[in-house]
């Protein structure tokens, strides 16, 4: 499943990325969003986009379009 399908407040593990160019993946990796990392979807902002997520010990706001490109599995 992808991150947009994951439930709120449930930690999941990143397994890979779908249709993402290497540069973008590289940047995400630099920010801690990489395969193996545990991510928790927390709070959608009032316009539903972006969504606040917890990745490791940091909070990130991820654009909704990105969520459907991050493959995850139950942590």
């Amino acid at each position, binding site marked *: 499943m992808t991150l947009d399908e994951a439930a709120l407040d449930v*930690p999941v593990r990143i397994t890979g990325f779908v249709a993402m160019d*290497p*540069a*973008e993946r*590289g*940047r*995400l*990796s*630099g*920010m*801690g*969003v*990489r395969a193996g990392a545990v991510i928790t979807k*927390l*709070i*959608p*902002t*009032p*316009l*539903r*986009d*972006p969504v*606040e997520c*917890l990745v*490791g*010990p*940091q*909070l*990130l*706001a*991820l*654009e909704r*379009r*990105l969520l459907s490109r991050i493959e995850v599995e139950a942590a």
Partner: protein
Amino acid sequence: MKKRVIALAGRPNTGKTTLFNALTGMRQRVANFAGCTVEKAVGEVEVSGEDVEIVDLPGTHSLLPETEDEKVAFRFLSECAEEGADLLVLCVGEASNLSNCLALTAALKSAGYPVALVVNMIDEARLNGVGVHAESLSGSLGVPVVEVSARHREGLDGVMELLKPHPLRADLTEALDFRTASKSRLRDLQEEAIAKAEQAAAAGITLPSRARLRTISRSIRIDRVLLHPIAGPIILAATMFLLFQALFSWAKPVMDLLSAALAALSEGLRARLPEGMISSLLCDGAIPGISAVVVFVPQIAILFTLIGALEHSGYLPRAGAMVDRALRPFGLDGKVFIPFLSGFACAIPGVMAARTIASEKRRLVAILLTPLMTCSARLPVYALIITAFVPASYRPLGLNGQGVVMAFMYVFGVVMALLLALALKWTRLYEAHPSPVTVLPPYRVPRAKELARYVWARCWHFVGRAGQVIFLVSLALWAMAMFPRNAKLVGPLEAKAAAVQAEPSSPDRDARLGELKHQAAAARIEGSLLGMTGRAVEPVFRPLGWDWRVSVAVMSSLAAREVFVGTLGTIYAMGREAGSSEGLIRALREAKKPDGSPRYTIATAAGLLIFFALALQCVSTIAIVRRETGSWKWPAIQFSCYFVLAYALSLAAVHLFA
């Protein structure tokens, strides 16, 4: 021998600037990185009797830079390597989020740069129960590691020890040149660095057994309120309302006080000095010039106190995230919100507020569009034109018609800014939406000392840099309005005034004397370079329904938009007293052409309103744009484009209403 250079590198929000301030104190200056407008904070500290230069580099998330700010950080390191500088890169990491900060340290080490790791905010890590083992980290990464809390000046001795010049400087000849390195090389380097960083983190960091760190849990609890679908926008609106109110209401008394003090100084000098050039230079040129600079300082101080508090508390990135979605179709992002909002008070703090935007192109777009917001200086102009030409009897839908037109002008500015933002999407200024990921730092209580330094730096920057230009242009405008002195026009009026002054004092004599002085002032402007220029450009503006008087008033309003009212008042010999706009309104309504038809019509008024809404009629704004963009190119483009747009739409409005 070259000076030792210490570059502070790391991710944003790791406390680099706090460390920079703690190390350099007041020995710091702001410059730009070579070849771009990205700001570079440079400071000096004396170590072992030698001055060491410290450079605070822009924050960067990875070796694959996306924005100009990130690129210059790596470019600077490569330039230091090329010049053979005695360089040390201090990678600053946040102790509670260290695992994500180690990759840069590992990457720079692999790239051949001399690196040390500064683990900052160690006090917060203790609170979170995060254990940092400096020796293990140092062993794994192969770099010196020191633990500090820059906020509390804890552990700074360890950093000072690292700054000491070494007899054998690091060899940078083999260091990777980031300017020429291929993307795949950088990607490989980053992947290797991440693997190394993970190993180092496993060896040198112990996390608490609970799932979430204390600071993160607290931030999530706060975010459940501040990002709530209903409460979130209300709190954001209230915060922005407070900011807007502060700019208007809190700053106004201080601004009025400064204005009044300088006006009193001017009048005091005028009364003491003999009438003539020196008196006029001081009272009509220099003091108003100083006033044009100083009066903005309270607004800038208040704006940056509030922005600084929002930024340091961690709310600003969240506020940006909340409005981001709505602005995205226009090619903008949430960070333009503060500059735009500040622009309603004054374009100067608005343009300066664009500094919170990391991407150079996006910052430039914000700087270019912010002056379209209806600033407070436009209000006297709008009020004069609307009151003079929109009949009080005009009541669309039962509403006050003059109020409706005023509200329309506010909306018009915003709509034009959004339309131009859309148009800019097709230019080279467009940059794809910044990273789809924004780091939301944990909420922190802003510290007064850091905030004071932040505000002081911005106020000083404004007075020291933009202030000079504003002052000089004010003097130039004064000179244009004073010279040459047309004796044919002014002489007879001054002679009459002298004759009246010689009469015994009476209320009637004083009234006639005042009237003659106003007429002499009007004649002086008419015969001056400004008046002559007004006449010369009259044919250009005739299609808009302007005569030389309006042209002169518009030109003089370059000093400040509200000067338009004062200049028209002088030309119509209404005097400079407060409350004289009633007479001016009547004079504008009743002004006739030689053929007896009205000189100004509703069409002229509509054109003037549109013109003032769009044209960059403010030398202070031009000066601050020049300062913020680092060249005259952008203010020149901005002034020209807005002038053409203002003229074209003004002409369209004149035809529509005619």
